[in-house]
């Protein structure tokens, strides 16, 4: 009887301790060196398609004359923040083709062999400076289950 009471009390205490310690993930401060490197990478490789400030071109939501989606924005008006670090890294390095393209071309070209894993991580870190706090928090949460691969950390 006494052991049962102790077990029950311990279980209740564990529940309260967990509840008290549980907090919404906070967006950690971004590494300034990574952001600086990433900004340079973005300017060289990404800005021509996605806009100098990640704003893309007007009408990006509609297919162009070739039946392909134009490059989307990477700032708070876009949807980059909705994806985990691992997913974004994969898209940058391997490219991506929109299944609704009218052509067989890749929608986003691959940058493996052009960018090092660390540079890919840097440019994605830079993009995070273009998001709102809420967007960054959401993205942090998504990245917990799909982080950057080991060679990019």
């Amino acid at each position, binding site marked *: 009887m006494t052991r049962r009471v102790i077990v029950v009390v311990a279980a209740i205490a564990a529940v309260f301790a967990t509840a008290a310690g549980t907090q919404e993930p906070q967006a950690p401060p971004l590494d300034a060196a990574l952001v600086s490197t990433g900004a340079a990478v973005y300017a060289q490789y990404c800005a021509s398609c996605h806009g100098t400030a990640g704003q893309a071109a007007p009408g990006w939501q509609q297919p162009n004359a070739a039946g392909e989606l134009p490059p989307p924005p990477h700032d708070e008006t876009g949807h980059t923040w909705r*994806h985990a670090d691992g997913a974004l890294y994969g898209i940058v390095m391997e490219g991506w083709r929109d299944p609704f393209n009218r052509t067989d071309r890749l929608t986003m070209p691959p940058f493996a062999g052009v960018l090092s894993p660390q540079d890919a991580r840097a440019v994605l870190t830079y993009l995070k400076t273009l998001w709102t706090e809420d967007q960054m928090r959401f993205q942090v949460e998504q990245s917990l289950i799909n982080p950057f691969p080991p060679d990019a950390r």
Partner: protein
Amino acid sequence: MISTQTRAAKSACKAAFRFVFTLVAAFGPWWGSIAVEAQEAGGSRAVVGLAYDQATSALFKADDGAIYRSLDDGATWQPGLTVPEGGAIGAIAIAAQGGGLYAAGPGIGVLFLDGDGSWLARNGDLPTTNVTALAAHADQPATLYAYIPEFGIYRTEDAGGTWQLMDRGPADISHLIHSNMPGSMQTGWLYAIAGEGVQVSMDCFCLWRALGAFDAASTIAYDPANPTQLYAASRRGLFQSSNGGLDWEAVPSPPAEIAALLVAPSGTLYAGGAGGELYRSIDGAATWERVGD
């Protein structure tokens, strides 16, 4: 240190649990039993939803008041399960990997059918029970999507324990399905009957796009064995797409106003009518037969 007797007792309990669980899994929920009112199948109430549970080989159809089950591909139906008063069924969905049956609708929110035949509310922290569309993730058993017109599309990743508002989405969503068609930046795609048209978005809610040019679209379904294959019904009839909805062509339609569509894992296509009829096609909509009368 655990005693030998205690270890033996625990093993016996585990064995008994596995035996009972196997029975429940094999025969499904205790249909038509406690806590719910049985209702005869058929009638003229519009079919609002169709679903197939691969784990139990059961076909489900719903009207706004009850859900019915068939174990012979729609030929015969067991008396239906009604939902709690004060609401109406607007959608049903089977969670992936044998995750069970969910029902949703205005006034009832999201309900889960428990193993003993009773409904469990799975509304979590949804702001209202005015859910007009429901979809189950094609692969993740605990992930569902619920649409509330006043707010948008919510997602749960813990079987309805908690919900997160993901996106405003297109307006007036009346039907929602989740597909695991390849090519998504996330885990799949959401197709919606919104207003009178069909729209699609990756399930990251990155961009909603209109598909086709439908006249009063009513419902949409995809082939789980070949997710690029879709069927959509509209006022002008039934249409199919073999490329995820990019292009559509008309196909023969059953002689009814189609209110619900379903492609079973076998490839059989089911169409539920606005007058309660059910048709099925085993040849990709080339021909139809009425079943379950």
